[in-house]
């Protein structure tokens, strides 16, 4: 874990982090990663990963239109108000 890694991950996560914070994070993330690395002691050969404790089939819903037509609710908390759209600074491809 170095400052370059911290900067790369911060960009992946879209987090602006000051130079000073980056230095602090190098130490803190190193210690967290160091802590979780104790898992390497555990023998997990032939162990299947467990993503969810729920032992049930994924439920499916009927294909029916039951939602939508709530533009006002959708846009109610919009940082830049517009009747029909969300608005952001122009995206340049």
């Amino acid at each position, binding site marked *: 874990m170095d400052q370059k890694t911290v900067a790369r991950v911060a960009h992946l996560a879209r987090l602006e982090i000051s130079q000073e914070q980056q230095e602090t994070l190098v130490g803190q993330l190193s210690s967290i990663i160091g802590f979780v690395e104790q898992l390497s002691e555990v023998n997990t050969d032939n162990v299947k990963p467990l993503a969810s404790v729920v032992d049930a089939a994924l439920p499916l819903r009927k294909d029916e*239109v039951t*939602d939508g037509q709530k533009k006002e609710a959708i846009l109610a908390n919009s940082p830049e108000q517009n009747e029909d759209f969300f608005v952001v600074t122009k995206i340049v491809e």
Partner: protein
Amino acid sequence: MGDIIKGETGDWEIVIGLEIHAQVIAKSKLFSGASTEFGAMPNTQVSLVDAGMPGMLPVLNEVVVEQAVRTGLGLNSKINLHSVFARKNYFYPDLPTGYQISQFEDPIVGEGIIEIDMEDGTVKEIGITRLHLEQDAGKSIHDMHPSKSYIDLNRAGCALMEIVSEPDLRSAEEAVAYISKIRMILRYLGTCDGNMDEGSMRADVNISLRRVGTEKLGIRAEIKNVNSLKAVQQAIAFETRRQLAILEDGGEVKQETRLWDTTKMETRSMRSKEEAHDYRYFPDPDLLPLELDSEWVRQIKETLPELPDQKKERFVKDFGLSVYDASVLISERARADYFESVAKGRDAKLATNWVTNELLGALNKLSLTLDESPVSADQLGGLIDLISDDSISGKIAKDVFADMINSSKDASVIVEEKGLKQVTDTGAIEAIIDEVIAENPDNVESYRGGKDRLFGFFVGQTMKKSQGKANPVVVNEILKKKLDN
């Protein structure tokens, strides 16, 4: 046969793989109950789930799952009874949750093979790598404001099938044939409408070059936003030239995502996509693994419609059609159905001719689809029946057909109203012929003197006098008898 590109330093081969994104036909979205209908007012077909509101959770649409399985079966591919939805993490304003729910390590459909038909009549097998389900993104609109982009989430969360091919395609023509074939199969299955201009089918093209004779794949570029068959052709042509220039120069193609610019007719690098390439996939903890019942899959398999390849084969075998005619007829399911309904119990050759030439020609002129045809399959069959039982001649039939296109009336009604029924009564025809002979003594003499060519003149005169209604076979027979005596 793929294209060989002649470079200054040697021959090159194009290697193409395609990722087709096909919007699944379903009433509601993949994980929400909002409508999928095209063309609604902005942000009206958006649920709180689609907008990525805090605490909102996805619930899977059962019909979409069925459609994906149906498609997998139609593409001769393996159905995975266990599949997993995973999150693909990246930031973009039209991706409300900051991740797309997709399938990564365990897609719902695995490997398969389809055949594509080339112009020259050859058939080539193309491998399908996988098909997985994923959410569509919303739409960013850049041209409504000089310094802002507007976001419409109507499309966000609609179900897409991503169909990934093996890098088995070797030319733009093959790529086009492959997309056309996939589209035809999906339309037959009723799982995607295949409308590229509405965006319900889109393709990403992976393309690389390698020296002829080498095995190893070259470094590829992925071209996005290739949204019509024409664009596929143009983008491949452009990208081939671009990569060739780099490689011939001894350079190296960069592995990157490029965008097809339809106005500039060129591909260009999408740096924004490049930086975010670490998608950090992991199983979506809001969902559980999707487990399918093999019996349920079997039942879907039983309800699959006859697919284009099977239909073509049957048309050739059962109706004695040429491969070309069969291909024309099966290219759309509605067309094939129309044809079958016309051909049933009738002369197949006649049916083929009337459907492919007369009907499709007329519709084309009027810019109508088969669905909008003023002449139904039953009506066209009725017309053919009148030809077959000698009620009208082929020539009269064309006039009747023109009338049918205008009026949507049954052929028999038109024939009745206009008195176009063919005359087969030998007595009546004999009387006309007698008149013709009496009116043209000179020509009779010349004919009998050896001018055989004049026979046509007598046929023409007879037909004219009968207003085209005389049965030409009978006319020929009687004329021959009378003139030769």
